[in-house]
């Protein structure tokens, strides 16, 4: 990362939560007039972000409160040199670090990367010779401080209330007894050495969070749909897949919604080994479409940035949802979240917490899912449609000039059907946020007569054809989406594919055709035939 270009709030990944926490911590330093002697350079911190070898920041905070010298192997050399270490103790850097860690749960900041970005911005404010950056940081601070103070005030009130309740119900406490201050810092302890078990990461669980207002529940009939918008037709469906694949539940989900002359769509494929992935897929398709709809409400044309922003806000929703679930282990929402999983509850909670803390890096995140989503709207020539779509993880998009003819499909977003592990997925926590840096986006004009197939990896498994070719082979001439007004058209195709795969398996158990959940979105431009809503 180039420190000369670092500006907090400029990156898409700098959430409102992060900016609020930055404003709050910066405000505390200003109030205490702790503006001199920060000592740590922003570049040191920015380099740190990309280096995973350092122990958790909470360990650094505790070590700075200790009287024992720091272990030499820990943290950047610039920090642990004897003189520097002494300067940092009780100085502005230590105050900023401690305040950031203590307040992160209140603001919903869950990753060390975010806290390091905050510290880098503060270092920049105190240490940079360039006024532009100082002024920029001051502007970000001014824009966010009121909101930040409000968030902190509410959290403090909630905390006081729960503390009061606990004291009231505690035996031995008399009515009218005054309460002590809520402790803000943990007692000083010796710094960690390599032989000691890792210290607890920042306390980011059990946050007092409310459930997000938007809380998707699957409804009957929502697994398939047909939408027509002018000459544009869209069918979508998801299916549990072939019986032989023994998928206990359908972790794929599709969704689409019409908004004026636009159609927004999304397909998500829950990561099979991820706890809560069915709930995640169902949620992601709806939340993504809703966020995108909101973001597009005042825009004439969609843009890459808006699409990325919708994905980021979907990630933020997942963060909030997970924090709510962790804080409320008895909430009825757990039933849908758990799905068919047989994982023991105490283990599930550990996986949920680990998604936010990454304490155990062998464990994957909960609620992980791929996403293919975007928007289609009429182009200026009024005969074509502009499609803008993004992908996080795998899945594919194919273009077919004439779906019922012999033309082969052209991949718009391809995938390796032999690869069963994905390198990116949309999920809560830092890993999910990192995945958003590898979003792929395509612009495509859907011309008259053209059909677009959007599919999860299931339809690509076990054969070497394009999905369009394989579906045509299985379904024969009966597959022709354009004239159909049947809401279940896509579902029927998937059902036929699943039955075909089961028959192949019965013939040869070594065959693994379509061995996964299946999902499909078909977008067709019937414009060349001159009749809105399909051919006759």
């Amino acid at each position, binding site marked *: 990362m180039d420190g000369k270009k670092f500006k907090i709030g400029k990156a898409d990944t700098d959430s409102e939560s992060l900016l609020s926490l930055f404003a709050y911590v910066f405000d505390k330093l200003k109030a205490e007039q702790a503006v001199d002697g920060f000592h740590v350079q922003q570049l040191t911190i920015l380099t740190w972000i990309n280096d995973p070898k350092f122990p958790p920041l909470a360990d650094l905070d505790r070590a700075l409160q200790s009287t024992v010298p720091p272990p030499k192997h820990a943290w950047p050399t610039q920090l642990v040199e004897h003189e520097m270490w002494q300067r940092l103790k009780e100085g502005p850097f230590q105050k900023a670090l401690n305040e950031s860690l203590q307040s992160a749960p209140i603001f919903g900041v869950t990753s060390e990367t975010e806290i390091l970005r905050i510290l880098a911005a503060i270092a920049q404010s105190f240490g940079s010779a360039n006024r532009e950056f100082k002024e920029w940081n001051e502007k970000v601070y001014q824009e966010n401080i009121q909101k930040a103070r409000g968030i902190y005030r509410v959290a403090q009130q909630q905390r006081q209330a729960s503390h009061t309740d606990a004291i009231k119900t505690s035996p031995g406490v008399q009515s009218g007894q005054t309460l002590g201050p809520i402790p803000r810092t943990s007692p000083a302890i010796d710094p960690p050495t390599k*032989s000691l078990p890792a210290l607890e990461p920042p306390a980011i669980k059990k946050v007092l969070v409310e459930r997000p207002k938007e809380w998707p529940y699957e409804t009957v009939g929502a697994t398939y749909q047909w939408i027509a918008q002018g000459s544009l037709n869209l069918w979508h469906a998801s299916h549990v897949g072939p019986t032989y694949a023994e998928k206990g539940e359908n972790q794929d989900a599709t969704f689409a919604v019409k908004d004026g002359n636009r159609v927004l769509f999304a397909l998500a494929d829950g990561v099979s*080994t*991820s706890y809560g992935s069915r709930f995640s897929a169902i949620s992601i398709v709806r939340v993504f479409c809703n966020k995108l709809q909101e973001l597009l409400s005042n825009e004439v044309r969609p843009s890459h940035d808006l699409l990325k922003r919708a994905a980021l806000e979907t990630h933020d929703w997942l963060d909030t949802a997970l924090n709510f679930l962790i804080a409320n282990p008895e909430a009825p929402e757990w039933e849908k979240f758990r799905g068919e999983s047989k994982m023991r509850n105490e283990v599930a909670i550990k996986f949920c917490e680990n998604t936010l803390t990454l304490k155990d890096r062998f464990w994957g995140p909960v609620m992980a899912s791929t996403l293919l989503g975007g928007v289609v709207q009429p182009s200026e020539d009024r005969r074509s449609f502009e499609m803008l779509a993004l992908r996080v993880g795998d899945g594919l998009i194919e273009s077919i000039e004439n779906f019922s003819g012999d033309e082969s499909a052209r991949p718009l977003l391809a995938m390796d059907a032999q690869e069963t592990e994905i390198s990116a997925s949309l999920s809560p926590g830092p890993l999910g946020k990192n995945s958003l840096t590898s979003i792929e986006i395509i612009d495509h004009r859907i011309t008259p007569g053209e059909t677009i197939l959007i599919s999860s990896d299931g339809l690509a498994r076990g054969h070497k054809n394009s999905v369009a070719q394989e579906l045509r082979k299985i379904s024969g001439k009966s597959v022709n989406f354009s004239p159909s007004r049947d809401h279940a058209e896509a579902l029927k195709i998937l059902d036929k594919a699943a039955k075909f795969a089961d028959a192949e398996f019965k013939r040869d158990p070594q065959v693994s055709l379509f061995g996964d959940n299946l999902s499909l979105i078909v977008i067709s431009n019937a414009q060349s035939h001159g009749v809105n809503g399909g051919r006759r």
Partner: protein
Amino acid sequence: MPAIAKLSLKKATARTPQIVTFIIDDSGSMSMSTPNGPKNEQATAATQQLIMTMQSWNQGSTGSRYILNIAKFGTTTVPIVEAAKPEDVSLNDLVFSADSGTTEMPEALTWAMHALKKSLDGCKQVPGYAEEASPNPLVIFFSDGGNTGGEVGTIAQALKSLPFAGGAVDVVAVGIGMDQSTFPIMQEIASRSDLSVNLEPGELGNFIADVGATLQRGESPETLIKKYDS
């Protein structure tokens, strides 16, 4: 170009589950401290962690990708689970307290034989089970001291020779800081000499964690052993 691809790798799935058996020494000497904590505490933490991880691998499947047998042994062998799915293992039962007396290896190996047979019988009840396509059953035997029981050759040979279609039972024998004089018995127990290793006592927790990584990647046990066989 064939339209249908065939399975080429032996991967643990609901139809081709892998049977994994852990037999862990719980004799008094396991309480010896190491830079990473007492050996029995390392065993407790690492196996609990591994089982939690394996529970996550069964998400989204009606069956189980792994079938587990776990026992601790000392003067007697105490089965913890037999032919169980990871989600059926209670973490509270996975506690090694180093209070099981001496090191009676033959009885422990006899139990492993029984548990493995029981697991194979259970797998054969799974609809569509394909033994020849399943990964080799893996037995991992841990001990930190010399055998206080009778000879182990006969039962060890029987365990290694248990028929398994399309493969063989892989028995890995892991010494935990054993004396060089007592370690040869581990080579006798292992399926092959390159499947036995004598760990530094502080490495036990990491080794068990690496068993998980090896299972997940579908790697051979030799790959795991090479990492520790210096």
